[in-house]
């Protein structure tokens, strides 16, 4: 669907990036500020010209420097949501949306009503951009990009200029878009929390180079990703499914708790909105996971996953990161090096990974289906 290989030099900075997304979904471009994320999506959008390379979206070649192909930005059909919304100040919200719709280069497959509904813009239509809150402005910007009927939607840290509360207000809309539209998206962020909620695929950028890519589960274990997210946010991300019946391990899964099948194991996760069969994504923060060499008894902890140690890595000062295979899924636990020694942990040691249900949060997650366009 998306295939990008580009080179671009800008003064001292050199970008050399290459990534692809095979299925529809959300690719997150992840990396520290200044690593070239914005330059990379400007190249994809056509706002910047690549020195060398090839960009293909949905079977259309947009850039091929060897063949002299460079489709101008206005004919690429790539939606772009900027960090600062960039709504036209001389037009109302409705005017901004109509601007995109009237210039759409394809018959509308995303309709006016659908966009208004998905992003809840009905009440904002008559207002001017200055009369909107930061979160509202970003919603309008997303709606405007969608109405241009794009093949691909680029989002450049759309939540970065918002405070935590506003961010939390916009995120559900983005999740909804991902699940409802089957539109491939490239999401730029240096916040792993946002990526965890939205992405299917993560591309790690470092100093202008794409150094690693993979699905979010694998990338959450990557040492280079761990260094960027910081010790407190390190943790395995696992995708699971809400079980139809409470499993053997969690016969009590009722009320707000759901039994989630993860690999061959089960987790009890607070996810009141999710029905059986729903796909759910859970992050198990390494600092919240306890390692036991015996079956736990008399503990309040709800989740005890039997597994085998697969890796022991020295982490921060005086602590180790233990990788545990709990039935086809790896989880990470951060424990002190002293505890590693005392328990004699080494690859192959059978252990239980313990995690409190209350420290987990389940996010609804649907891998979108391919819709012909």
């Amino acid at each position: 669907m998306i295939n990008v290989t580009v080179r671009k030099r800008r003064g001292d900075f050199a970008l050399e990036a290459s990534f692809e997304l095979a299925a529809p979904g959300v690719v997150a471009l992840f990396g520290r500020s200044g690593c070239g994320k914005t330059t990379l999506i400007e190249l994809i959008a056509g706002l910047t010209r690549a020195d060398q390379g090839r960009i293909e979206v949905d079977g259309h070649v947009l850039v091929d420097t060897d063949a002299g192909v460079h489709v101008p930005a206005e004919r690429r059909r790539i939606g772009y949501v900027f960090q600062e919304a960039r709504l036209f100040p001389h037009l109302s919200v409705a005017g901004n949306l109509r601007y995109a719709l009237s210039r759409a280069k394809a018959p509308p497959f995303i309709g006016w009503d659908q966009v208004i509904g998905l992003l809840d813009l009905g009440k904002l239509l008559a207002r001017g951009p200055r009369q909107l809150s930061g979160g509202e402005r970003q919603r309008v910007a997303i709606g405007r990009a969608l109405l241009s009927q794009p093949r691909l939607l680029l989002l450049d840290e759309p939540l970065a200029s918002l405070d935590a509360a506003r961010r939390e207000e916009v995120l559900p809309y983005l999740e909804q878009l991902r699940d409802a539209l089957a539109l491939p998206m490239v999401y730029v962020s240096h916040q792993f929390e946002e990526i965890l909620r939205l992405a299917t695929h993560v591309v790690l950028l470092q100093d202008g180079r794409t150094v690693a890519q993979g699905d979010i589960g694998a990338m959450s274990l990557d040492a280079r990703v761990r260094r960027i997210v910081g010790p407190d946010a390190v943790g395995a991300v696992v995708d699971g499914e809400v079980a139809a019946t409470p499993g053997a391990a969690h016969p009590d899964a009722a009320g707000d708790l759901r039994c989630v099948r993860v690999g061959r194991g089960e987790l009890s996760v607070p996810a009141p909105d999710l029905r059986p069969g729903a796909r759910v994504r859970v992050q198990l923060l390494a600092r919240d996971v306890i390692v036991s060499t015996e079956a736990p008894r008399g503990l309040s902890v709800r989740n005890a996953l039997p597994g085998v140690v697969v890796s022991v890595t020295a982490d921060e000062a005086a602590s180790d990161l233990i990788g545990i295979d709990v039935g086809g899924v790896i989880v990470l636990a951060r424990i002190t090096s002293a505890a590693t020694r005392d328990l004699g942990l080494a690859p192959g040691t059978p252990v239980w990974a313990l995690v409190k249900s209350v420290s987990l949060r389940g996010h609804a997650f649907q891998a979108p289906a391919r819709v012909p366009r």
Partner: protein
Amino acid sequence: MIWLSPSERDALALSLGIALRSVAASLPFAVALAWLLTRRRFPGRTLLDALVHLPLVLPPVVVGYLLLLTFGARGPLGAALARCCGIELVFTRAGAALATAVMSFPLLVRTVRLSLENVDRGLEDAARTLGAGPVDRFASVTLPLILPGVLAGAVTAFSAALGEFGAVITFVSNIPGETRTLPLALYTALQSPGGEAEAARLATLSIALGLAGLLVSEGLARWMRRRFER
């Protein structure tokens, strides 16, 4: 207007008409040139910039003289214009409009340029990603955003055009009913015995017109500032 004599009224109407024609004719060129100077890098850009601003620092008589050389009956352009389109510029209103246009052109270009520099280029990029080509982008985003600035510039240039003296009198002379604009009428009144009262009336009129123009222009500039705040 009752207190103005017929000849004074003529001068006023003539001035307004000439100023209007001069601004209307030069505005598109000023916008195009301002766009070129802010958005494009090309060899000779600095020289072009200096040439546009030259009338600001030259004695107006020099501008009038240069116009006479170029557009006079035997001047290279003047002769060509007369032959192909029957346009006579020397001693005519059209010539007066040309002289005032050249003199007020730098003012116009400067204001348009200033507002162009204030336009957030990011908005033009946003328009691009929404499918707007270069002409569409200019018409639908850039122009509406600079419109208050363009209008403010036009009003200032109009006011300046009403008062242009040196270039007009040098290029098209001082013909009652044809090229005798307000400042020329004022000058003539001062030269004639007993013309003091007329001179005072015309001076008052000029002051009032100039003041009104500046006020309108300032109002437009404020509107523009509000427009760019986000």
